[in-house]
């Protein structure tokens, strides 16, 4: 690739970046740059597992408090 076509490729890449910038200025921070496909069924499965872990968290807290009082 000649340096001219290299520069052209770079400029094109930057134009793309700038074009993407505009709508992002309106997006909320937590969603602005997340672009990986979160999946469909896999996402729901993860949410279900997360709910299970949430329950496990409270159960563990409960056990800690229970044994803590004993100690």
């Amino acid at each position, binding site marked *: 690739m000649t340096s001219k076509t290299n520069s052209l490729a770079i400029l094109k890449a930057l134009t793309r970046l700038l074009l993407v910038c505009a709508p992002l200025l309106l997006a909320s921070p937590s969603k602005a740059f997340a672009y990986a496909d979160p999946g469909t*069924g896999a996402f729901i499965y993860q949410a279900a597992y997360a709910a299970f872990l949430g329950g496990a968290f409270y159960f563990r807290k409960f056990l800690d408090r229970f044994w803590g009082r004993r100690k």
Partner: protein
Amino acid sequence: MTAAHDSAPPSNLSFRDPGGTLIQYNGRILRAVHPRAAADLETFLQTDCARQAMDSGKLVRSVRVSPSEYPWIETECLLEHERIPFPSYPYEWPAEMLHAAGELTLELARAAVVEGFRLKDATPYNVLFRGGDPVFVDVLSFEPRAPGDSAWIAYAQFVRTFLLPLMAARYFDMPIDRALSGHRDGLEPETVYRWAGPLQRLRPPFLGLVSLPKWLKGRETAATYQPRASASPEKARFVLDGILKSCERQLRSLQPAATDSTWSGYLDHKSIYSSEQLAQKEAFAAEALDVARPQSVLDVGANEGHFSFLAAKRGAAVVAIDSDAAVAGSIWRRARREQAPVLPLVVDLTRPTPAMGWRNQECASFLDRARGSFDMVMMLAVLHHIVVTERVPLEEVFALAAEITREYLFIEFVAPDDPMFQKIVRGRDELYSHLTQAGFEAAAARSFDLVRSRRIDGMHRWLYLYRRRQNNN
């Protein structure tokens, strides 16, 4: 590090991440960062997790550089990354390397959580290899995490691009390149579901990674993807860490086992070289390496990498290619064990990896990356496979070698009388009557000058060290 050259084509032009763009210019790897992502990236690079990862070589070294050095790049935040010598892509890796890349990804994801950051994408394209060691190169993958955030948004991508291809390799004998080269974002659970048997679908790991996602597909609504903040940051961290640990367990259970293929043990067990003959070959190789003193070597048809490691011991950075994934995997294991700078890739020189991606420009072809990148090319005990099995004319082999190497070619001539040659020619001897030693040397002389040669005693094999004629561009 290999010297860069201006004519290098852009590699992994990353335009998908809205947070920034990767640019290769004059051998330097630069990243222009979106203004809103810049501050967070700076903060991340200052964290303990990032500093430790950069010091240990697990995260690519990244420094802020002044944009004024590159006035034509209009950005306020410009980073320069350490250049990893030979970029390679997941579809060229043996399963062991994909697994190692996954382990590194999860390790950094867990470390980032501790510092209040999260990994927003988890794809093997975030990882390159320095010799046998994986290096995470996409620093923009780290972004700040709200304290109540308990979901890992990259979970499904991690499953698609790491876990499912490893499962396909283990359960269906599917090579990694077949799983990954057709699909940028990996395998979908629905696809793997179709391959699995009815009972297999009900057992782990298929149940959680394949079947349940497939059965749950279609139940998502717009509300599904709305982030639900947890009231307790402690709980959110517990849940997120739990998800990451579960991925680690799944990944560990998919650790590729060392397999026995036709080619493994070629030099050790099924070897046709007696110990004296092998010693002669090694001695010649040592002399050749001492004469050439290459900084970088390409070992074609490396098999178990016996000569790759010889070159690495003498200070060369080696890329060892072989079309057999099992032997490439065994090279990787040894490279890790010995901490040797040998990068094994599953590449067939007669059908090398093509340019891939958008406009066939995102991922450079193997030959584009290889041309002019090596001081020496080794073709030991492989010429007969190229000429007989793949029917590539001898002149073409030398022409390609002359394109790839900057200086030296270390090649083993396997004559038609050799037993291995006879084994693969299967009656087509007439085709190779021109393949005499004189014919071989004449073909070489078109682009190369002989430095030294010798015959391996008692064999129809000759070793040659050639030097590329410099005016022959």
